[in-house]
């Protein structure tokens, strides 16, 4: 090996090492508008104090950013929609290449989102949709598909009842888009089963206490006729289960007869699916949610076109596959 080739190979080696430090991941577009390491992502989030899901999401987001070697600019609105609008404007002032917003309030974020669009910054709305009046300002939505989650729950319910039985529904807050989607998706599947009858459907909002009260009323009215309960999420579902437990103790209901299904699984329902007391739910991963948002943001900044809705995979969970799904820490 001549001295020249030695120098050359050393130079190539060094270049490779240099590259390795800031190597873009393989899903990153080869022909980017901007080098990977120069992309600045702004993230106006609502604050990790919302609930366990949000806390897990932000932890995963920061870890994924560190792993990729990008340094997003994060702001925390502490659940104040006015402060979030200010922070979105602070991020516009810094001329970020792409912005992610997890809205505190889907309606109140609309004027600020329009300013992001006016500034020519691609905008990702993560996890909770912006109000429809502001959708034109959004480049892409990333996060759960409430309709698909509810369809999945519908399939689980139909299988649990072998296509025949009486069910009651505990829905979300009327007027909320999410609540409507989680009702429509479930009913779309259930309506294909003529032998599954909906006895009644009531708004439990997102409240465990309200779920319990409504279920107590259902038990009084329908008693042993009830074969299945569909709840908007695990919180409401757990309220319903608590009411049923009391009725089983009193002898009003048979143990194990009613199948409980909901559309978003919390950790305590994962435990109950494992023991068999709760029939099934749908898994939504905060970690995947966070990674999807950051990945999509980097692709947008590179100039790649994304679908308007980039949905998270949300698999159904029953006793059969609960061991393959990690227990949600919320």
């Amino acid at each position: 090996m001549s001295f020249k080739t030695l120098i050359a190979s050393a130079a190539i080696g060094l270049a490779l090492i240099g590259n390795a430090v800031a190597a873009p991941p393989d899903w990153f577009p080869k022909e980017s508008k901007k080098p990977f390491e120069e992309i600045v992502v702004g993230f106006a989030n609502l604050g990790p104090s919302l609930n366990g899901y949000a806390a897990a999401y932000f932890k995963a987001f920061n870890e994924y950013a560190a792993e990729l070697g990008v340094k997003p600019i994060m702001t925390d609105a502490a659940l104040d929609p006015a402060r979030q609008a200010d922070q979105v404007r602070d991020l516009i002032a810094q001329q970020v290449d792409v912005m992610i917003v997890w809205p505190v309030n889907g309606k109140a974020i609309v004027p600020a989102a329009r300013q992001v669009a006016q500034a020519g910054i691609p905008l990702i709305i993560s996890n909770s949709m912006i109000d429809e009046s502001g959708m034109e300002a959004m480049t892409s939505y990333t996060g759960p598909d409430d309709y698909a989650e509810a369809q999945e729950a519908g399939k689980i319910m139909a299988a649990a009842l072998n296509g025949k039985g009486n069910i009651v529904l505990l829905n979300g807050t009327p007027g909320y888009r999410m609540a409507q989607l989680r009702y429509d998706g479930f009913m779309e599947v259930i309506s294909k089963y003529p032998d599954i009858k909906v006895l009644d459907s009531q708004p439990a909002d997102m409240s465990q206490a309200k779920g319990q009260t409504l279920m107590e009323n259902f038990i009084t009215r329908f008693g042993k006729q009830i074969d299945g309960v569909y709840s908007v999420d695990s919180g409401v579902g757990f309220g319903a289960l608590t009411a049923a437990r009391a009725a089983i103790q009193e002898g009003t209901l048979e143990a194990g007869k009613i199948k409980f299904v909901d559309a978003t699984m919390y950790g305590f329902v994962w435990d109950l699916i494992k023991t068999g007391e709760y029939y099934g739910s749908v898994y939504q991963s905060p970690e995947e949610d966070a990674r999807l948002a950051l990945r999509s943001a980097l692709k947008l900044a590179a100039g790649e076109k994304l679908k308007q809705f980039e949905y998270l995979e949300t698999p159904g969970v029953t006793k059969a596959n609960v061991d393959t799904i990690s227990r949600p820490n919320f």
Partner: protein
Amino acid sequence: MSLATDRLQPSATSFDGLKTFIRSNSVWLLALALAVFFSLQSAFFLTPFNISNVLTQCVFVGLLAIGMTPVVISGNIDLSVGAVVGLTACIVVALQPYGLGVAVLAALAAGVLVGLVNGLIVEKMGISSFIVTLAMMSGIRGLTFLAIGDISLSSTDDRLNAFAMLAIGPISIVVVLFAGLAAVVGFVLRFTPHGRNTFAIGGNRSAAVDAGIAVSRHVIANFALCGLMAAICGIAMAANLGAAAPSFGRDYELLAITAVVLGGTRLQGGKGGVTGTLGAVLALAILRNGLNLLRVSPFYIPVIVGVVLIIALVLDRQVNGQAMRHGE
């Protein structure tokens, strides 16, 4: 009535003049120092867009703090302003079907009414304003949630949001409105009998009573003004965000009190002014905006704001403490 007029008296010497200037404007110097610091640290700080941001970010807390200042000077406090913001924001959006004028007037009236009730209970029953307005805060917030539910309302009349988005160059119309209101309240405090009496009541209430001042009337008027400013804040917030929710304005009473105190108004009453409050609002907005621009982790920002507040108050005590004891 010379209790609060020390800053207005011409100084004997130029050295005294400088001391008085620094004493009564220390928070403006802090704002200036922060502005210089952040403009050296971030290329984005002095862009017209960002200057407009900082000024707009002053408005909400600023409106509350300006309204709170006379209340505190007269020796009281109003913890209900944040709840009034939520209430009036919801009123101005929910009543839009009856006409925008009706909605705005109803929101303003609601704010004044809450202020009047606060003042009447404090004065006629002799209960501490801390307790009265604490109860009012909880009651108003609860009522708003009962009436609206835990949802948000979309503004249906686009004129409201369109108005909030108007701007003269980089200066938003909301900022102009805020500056005008601050000037009016500042003028009333300094140059009218009501203002002078407000200082007198806070400085020494029994002396004010002995001097024949109609103490109750002035205190109630200040609470009503504070409610009115909170209502304007609620309307401005609903206009700016194009929506309203019962949770709007949560914890804003604390941000407003922070600004009032940082601005040099004494919590026990008798001393202070709108100029200082305004400087404090600006300094706090610059601090938050600048820390965002420097990419400081969001978790550090409240800590830094708290530390700056304590340092500022300690320094203020060092500079003004002696004078304050003299005055007492």
